């Protein structure tokens, strides 16, 4: 019997993931999956109950492919697309440092996670970069927290009001 843990959707994705043979394929597959199905910016809601599990399975496979193809130096210094992790991290931090708008900062941080969350970027770069981005985002979000009334805040966030009682 299909249930939330074992179901045909997950089986289908397991088959797709098994077909990934190179790190380049795995990286692209993971990047595309995250853009479509992960985060509040997702564009496809068809995997609402399964995306987190499927993402985990893709990450597992990409990590295995990375281990097979990368040497020790690359494992510590390169993203799975081959880019230099130090530069990718520095670019994200510089973009955040220049940012003064909380909504833009939110995009920078969420997009960084979508693009770089391990196994894409080595954890030695990812975690500290994530800390720096998160700190700045929290500062921007919490400044003048109550400045806007809820009506204004809903507009700025871009939500549609379905009902208010």
């Amino acid at each position, binding site marked *: 019997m299909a249930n939330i*843990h074992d179901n045909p959707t997950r089986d289908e994705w397991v088959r797709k993931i098994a077909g990934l043979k190179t790190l380049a394929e795995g990286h692209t597959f993971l990047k595309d999956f995250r853009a479509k199905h992960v985060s*509040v910016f*997702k564009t496809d809601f068809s995997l609402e*109950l399964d995306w987190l599990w499927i993402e985990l399975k893709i990450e597992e496979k990409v990590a295995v492919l990375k281990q097979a193809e990368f040497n020790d130096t690359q494992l510590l210094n390169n993203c799975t697309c081959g880019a230099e992790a130090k530069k990718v991290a520095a670019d994200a931090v510089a973009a955040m440092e220049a940012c003064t708008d909380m909504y833009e900062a939110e995009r920078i941080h969420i997009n960084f996670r979508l693009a770089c969350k391990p196994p894409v970027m080595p954890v030695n770069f990812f975690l*500290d970069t*994530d*800390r720096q981005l998160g700190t700045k985002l929290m500062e921007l979000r919490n400044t003048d927290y109550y400045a806007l009334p809820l009506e204004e805040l809903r507009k700025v966030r*871009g939500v549609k009001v379905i009902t208010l009682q």
Partner: protein
Amino acid sequence: MAISAATKAATDALAVNRAPVSVGAQEVHRWMQSFTWDFEKNRTKYSTKYKMANDTKEQFKLIAKEYARMESVKDERQFGSLQDVLTRVDAANRVHPKWNESMKVISNFLEVGEYNAIAATGMLWDSATAPEQKNGYLGQVLDEIRHTNQCGYINYYFAKQGQDAAGHNDARRTRAIGPLWKGMKRVFSDGFISGDAVECSINLQLVGEACFTNPLIVAVTEWASANGDEMTPTVFLSIETDELRHMANGYQTVVSIANDEASSKYLNTDLNNAFWTQQKYFTPVLGMMFEYGSHFKVEPWVKTWNRWVYEDWGGIWIGRLGKYGVQSPASLRDAKKDAYWAHHDLFLIAYALWPTGFFRLTLPTAEEAEWYETNYPGWYDMYGKVYEEWRARGCEDPNSGFLPLQWFIENNHPIYIDRVSQVPFCPSYCKGASNLRVLEYNGKKHSFSDQWGERMWLSEPERYECQNIWEQYEGRELSEVIAEGHGVRSDGKTLISQPHTNKDGKLWTLDDIKKIGCVFADPLKAL
């Protein structure tokens, strides 16, 4: 006999300057400070808007050896009482059956809180820069490990020695379907260990421990004693003796950031959000566990809440922090309004959803109904007569074919789940302050029950990405959901939860539920 020159030299030296045979713990503490380890340049692994001062003091000044000696004595007393005298007098079987069920929730949930507090205080250890402050947090890490074991042990004890072990022994198996689990994880997990490290301290130490520890860990011992439970006071008061250190740590967290510029910008916002987060769950859930999970009543929850949350914490404790710029949370007034009816609203829903839980619930008796009406005038007209109707329709009897959830459906009272607190609410049938707000964002609908939570979500929606039980099981039949969510006992068919605690009453099985044909529907889909 002649002695060697070396021995003589040593003997002469000792005669002048005797080696100490013992060292006072406080002396060791002072000696440790002289190391002046330079933590100032350390950077924490965790994000925070604040900078903690490098010279913050810690009030308890305990070193590990002194700490271990003290805690081992407490453990000996506690486990000695439990394993010797309380077992011999069969104490676990003298607990009122209703309270036995409450302890399934209280101890299992508190165990989750204590477990997350280990990580939270470890994070604070990493974030602080002052040696003494780190020492205080380290002591708390050790406390939380002890408390996690204690909470686990009390469930083990009840399961082994007492009545109806199901739910004491393996509550976590129902975590996907139980409607109280996700809200508990929101306060005890997310609140304690996610986001800004200092905000986590405010959630854990300044609100969770300084505000709700008294109702949670002290009041629970009064209710337990009144209902024949000698085990819980034995364990929980032993836990409580450590909580003072935690409150002091929370105080010192605020002291350490008092002169930081960030404090004036963020501290009161973080405190307000932390207070609302914690109270939104604890206020209704604790009130429900005490009043509806007991036979013998101590005092109305609203009085306990008013004394410890509103006056003691909101007035005195926060008042003492006023010199550091801390203000009583703006949401305290709304919380006070909710403290009167919120737990009554929640029990109505909890009873309706009983098959998804891991503990047994009981409808109020006539005597209890009188107590509710006396202490909460208007209770009968809103709740009492509904319980009478449910009882008349046979809600306790598996052959009745009636689940209280059907009453909500028949009367068009949809039950929503607040996206931020994860607490279920029924806006069309409640006396509490809940009011429905539904917003759609990027193609997904979200329901909220108050302005404070809505603002938290509007500020950081990615924090609250999840599926509630309606979204998760939309279109699924209830008995299938219970089976899938492991809500059955070891025979594979009898539900862990039951709508009564009657020893001779029939127990509901999956077949009884299946016959009713109850299908989960997401109320947001209808909007």
